[in-house]
């Protein structure tokens, strides 16, 4: 292809070059099964006697359920039973983090969005279940819905009592008033960002099975088996030991399968428990769009003070996030907004406040970037605005204020040696040939009247893993077993959701043990093997599960080395293990032969590994301290072309540099960066959710919720900055989210540059852009 695929690395340790797998491009270990159609996703499971469940969703965004009449539905052929709130043996509560989400709305209670479930129909066929769901009669008293942040802030109609508005988080650093007083210029602006749907290609679903251990086993599409386990146990009133969760191959997550799978597994498990049969509950695309979480619409007000020389003096931010009908993960998502709202630069005076507001719409939750792409769009737009007013180069302005090791972040955290902020700025500058790029674009614009190009830049940081708010969850386990034939089984608590977890874990196990990667089997996660390992979110799996695997493998390797050394009668220090072979000065054996020898000598060849996050010093009351373990940085430069006739935008070129600590699998890292970019580009340019005035979602399938196709893919040049993070496995920090975070900001800045007017809203659909273009034309005339 003519798209340049060059990957640059500016700092790398020689260690990498001596390794067999780490840092190399690796073929995905489960790739062929997927490409051949053999991999089993949840809807591919079929079991003897399996029944089908369909939820009865509320027809109203905000209404009191007066009564539920199931009699007609019960008499429909093929219906097995209809489940309502009275059938729940445990708690009628689903919400992760915030507990305000009933699984089935009971008569007398309120439905708070159209995706709230009132009943579940269980039938012998999917068709009968669907028909039955249509025949359940629910009598509602319809209430006025709250459908926007503004309506919620009025607080006259309450979604939840006592108020729609919750102040969640703050940052306080220095003296904000003094900071502004010392500034030469003060800039102020408000930015608005809309919803984004994850649009994983596999709709959500679960199969729940009464198992031979007297409990319930749930198979399904998910990121977080341990969340699902807790939810099922809570709703059934079961002990955790009677609930076993096994992840099926999962067709994409992006955060959308963090908490939501719990809300599908629990109803499925209840149906299996009540009927004694396996029950499948898979959402249609329409149901998935209506019911499952989205990226938070966020409003950001920003005030930034600078000196004439371009020194950032003070940043004040107010952030309002639309939580939808249920709190779910909002407090932790908006916590990331809190930490990232004041940007990625040195600034001594900071004040940030973050509120969540309830509305009668779909609950918003986790989505790649977790509350940060929205605030970076605002902040990086301000950076461009300021640079342009000061008449300085945008990249130079960012470099001047960028963070280096030893500097303090906006929350006062001192940065470690792995901080590669400036390196990413310099690499992106080089990759894009920055000054020539600006000239090239200017030339084009002079020659063209109806098409204009623009260059955008964004510089971001990303707190690695869950951070202080998620400290109690931030630990992961692994269980590694070496069979007597030398094959290695790896069980971890993190999940493969397409990001390449299995390949990364296989590489770490192979590298640490000295075995060949094709001899490593990474199993589907099963909660009965590995203790609670927290969620597969926050780009944390390589770091946490990877460290756990590495630790378990180090112990096993030591045992095998000792056994081999003992047999060869040499010192263990004389033994080398690499590429499936043990060797010492007097002889060698294959990995399998040593494993068999260990087996004969009763040397235990299974081991657990555990990695926990150190405690962080964050003080939520003061809004100051260490927020995350460490930070990953990125700088992204994009070139867009705007059609001034229609307001359509095409992203043409991308130059992006990511500070990843260490790339475990270079191919997978590049794949994450490309995929994250295109998903972020969709968010910036075309993706939106629309509701009607009754609170019913109008964007009900992929014909109205529009995501990028292959035609929209730009040309990429990607660079990696590798400054190893001391706690990361082989130095890795994570890439899943930083791949997307800078993109909305970079694209918006490029569009603003092209049209000569500031974009303040996302997505930049042609309609919005044309309104800016026509305003601009009126100003120029």
């Amino acid at each position, binding site marked *: 292809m003519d798209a340049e695929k060059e990957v640059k690395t500016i700092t790398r340790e020689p260690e990498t070059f001596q390794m067999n797998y780490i840092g190399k491009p690796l073929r995905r270990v489960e790739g062929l099964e997927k490409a051949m159609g053999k991999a089993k996703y949840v809807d591919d499971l079929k079991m003897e006697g399996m029944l089908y469940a369909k939820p009865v969703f509320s027809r109203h965004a905000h209404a009191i359920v007066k009564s539920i009449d199931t009699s007609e539905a019960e008499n429909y052929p093929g219906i097995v039973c209809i489940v309502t709130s009275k059938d729940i043996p445990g708690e009628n509560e689903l919400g992760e983090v915030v507990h305000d989400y009933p699984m089935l709305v009971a008569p007398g209670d309120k439905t708070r969005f159209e995706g709230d479930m009132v009943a579940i129909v269980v039938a012998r066929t999917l068709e009968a279940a669907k028909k039955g769901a249509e025949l359940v009669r629910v009598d509602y008293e319809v209430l006025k819905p709250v459908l926007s942040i503004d309506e919620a802030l009025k607080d006259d109609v309450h979604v939840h009592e006592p108020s729609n508005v919750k102040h969640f988080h703050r940052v306080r650093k220095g003296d904000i008033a003094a900071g502004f007083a010392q500034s030469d210029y003060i800039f102020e602006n408000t930015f608005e960002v809309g919803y984004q749907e994850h649009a994983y290609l596999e709709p959500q679903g679960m199969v729940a099975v009464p198992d031979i251990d007297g409990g319930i086993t749930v198979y399904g599409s998910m990121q977080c088996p341990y969340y699902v386990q807790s939810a099922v146990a809570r709703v059934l009133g079961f002990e955790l030991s009677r609930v076993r969760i096994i992840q099926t191959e999962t067709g994409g997550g992006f955060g959308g399968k963090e908490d939501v799978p719990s809300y599908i597994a629990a109803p499925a498990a209840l149906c299996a428990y009540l009927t004694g049969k396996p029950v499948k509950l898979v959402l249609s695309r329409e149901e998935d769009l209506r019911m499952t979480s989205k990226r938070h619409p966020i409003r950001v007000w920003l005030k930034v003070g600078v000196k004439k020389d371009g020194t950032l003096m003070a940043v004040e931010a107010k952030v309002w996030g639309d939580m939808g009908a249920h709190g779910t993960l909002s407090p932790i998502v908006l916590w990331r907004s809190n930490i990232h709202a004041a940007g990625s630069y040195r600034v001594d005076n900071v004040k940030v406040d973050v509120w969540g507001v309830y509305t009668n719409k779909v609950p918003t939750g986790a989505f790649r970037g977790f509350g940060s792409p929205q605030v970076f769009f605002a902040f990086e737009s301000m950076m461009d605005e300021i640079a342009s007013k000061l008449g300085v180069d945008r990249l130079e302005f960012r470099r001047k204020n960028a963070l280096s090791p030893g500097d303090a972040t906006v929350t006062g955290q001192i940065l470690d040696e792995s901080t590669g902020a400036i390196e990413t700025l310099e690499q992106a500058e080089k990759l894009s040939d920055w000054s020539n790029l600006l000239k090239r674009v200017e030339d084009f614009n002079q020659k063209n009247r*109806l098409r204009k190009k623009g260059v955008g830049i964004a510089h971001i940081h990303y707190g690695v893993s869950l951070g202080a708010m998620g400290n109690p969850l931030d630990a992961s386990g692994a269980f590694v077993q070496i069979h007597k034939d030398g094959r290695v089984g790896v069980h971890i608590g993190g999940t493969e959701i397409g990001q390449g977890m299995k390949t990364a874990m296989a590489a770490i196990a192979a590298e640490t043990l000295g075995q060949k990667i094709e001899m490593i089997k990474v199993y589907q996660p099963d909660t009965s093997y590995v203790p609670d390992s927290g969620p597969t979110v926050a780009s944390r799996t390589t770091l946490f599960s990877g460290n756990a695997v590495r630790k378990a493998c180090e112990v096993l390797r030591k045992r095998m080395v000792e056994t081999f050394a003992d047999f060869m009668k040499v010192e263990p220090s004389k033994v080398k293990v690499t590429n499936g072979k043990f060797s010492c000065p007097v002889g060698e054996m294959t990995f399998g032969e040593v494993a068999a020898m260990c087996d004969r000598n009763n040397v235990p060849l299974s081991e657990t590994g555990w990695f926990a996050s150190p405690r962080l010093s964050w003080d939520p009351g003061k809004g100051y301290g260490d927020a995350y373990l460490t930070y990953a940085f990125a700088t992204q430069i994009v070139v867009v072309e705007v059609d001034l*006739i*229609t*307001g359509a935008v095409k992203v043409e070129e991308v130059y992006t540099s990511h500070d990843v600590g260490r790339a475990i699998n270079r191919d997978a890292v590049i794949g994450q960066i490309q995929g994250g970019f295109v998903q972020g580009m969709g968010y910036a340019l*075309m993706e939106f959710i629309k509701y009607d005035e009754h609170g019913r979602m*109008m964007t009900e399938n992929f014909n109205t919720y*529009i995501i990028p196709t292959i035609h929209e893919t730009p040309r990429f040049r990607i660079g990696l900055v590798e400054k190893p993070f001391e706690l990361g496995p082989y130095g890795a920090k994570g890439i899943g989210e930083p791949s997307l975070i800078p993109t909305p900001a970079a694209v918006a800045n490029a569009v603003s540059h092209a049209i000569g007017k500031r974009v303040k809203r996302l997505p930049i659909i*042609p*309609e919005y852009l044309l*309104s800016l273009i026509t305003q601009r034309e009126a100003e120029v005339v």
Partner: protein
Amino acid sequence: MIGTSFSFYTPSTERELLITLSKGALPVAGMTDVMVKIRTGKMKAKALSSVSRIESLKGVQMADDAVTIMAATTYTELLENKGLKWRLPILLDAVSEIGSTQIRNRGTLVGNIVNASPAGDGLLVAYLLDGNLEICSNEGCRSVDVRDFVKGPGQVALAPGEYIRSVTLKIPPKDSLYAFVKVGQRSAMAISVASVGVLLRLNAGTIEDFRIALGSVAPTVVRPLELERNLVSLKMEDGLFKTLAGELMNYISPIDDIRASAWYRREVVKRIVENLSVYLKGVEKQ
């Protein structure tokens, strides 16, 4: 699972088709829209009868001044038909932007016309090329102008027991310039938010023939015949398209919907027409 039950016939002759229609079946072709409508509950058919196996309803027939496209001919078959490349390039431009390869492998131009969506790209071209339908039933066949056939969004003058055999499109005058401009929400696989089709023939700077059709800006495709006639014999001058754009605004009545606002549709059509010269192209030589 489609979620509703119905009968489905696959007749292999027009005679068999008529029998199924007399039993109350609706004639269908590629079903790329019908299946979606059934799934979403927007269409509740008791019986469907597919024309796609009927040999006599396949193919394209060329005459000197017109092209007849049979009802079961897919978009892909049109795109692969070499004779259409220079006869009706504007049709191929429009068809190549409909749906995806998978959709074009099944969907038909006649189906697009019966669907009668104001956003139908094939329908727009049929308006522009003075399309004429051959509609048949047990009583025989009749010929109807596409513009008379379409009554409103999704509403057509097709009586129970009738089916469409073909659509005949007139080949534009030699050396016409043409443009098909589609505004969608992305660059492929998009439904038109607004669309403009134009045919223009000049003779020494004077307009000899002018046709314009606008999609998604009114309950049906708009073809302002009076305005077109007024342009004939005028000199092709700067500012002409700007004037035209202004006048066109009186012929359209766009609405706000999920894809775009009325304001945008109006504005974008105006801007496209003002800049028509950017989009106009000539027919490649045979």
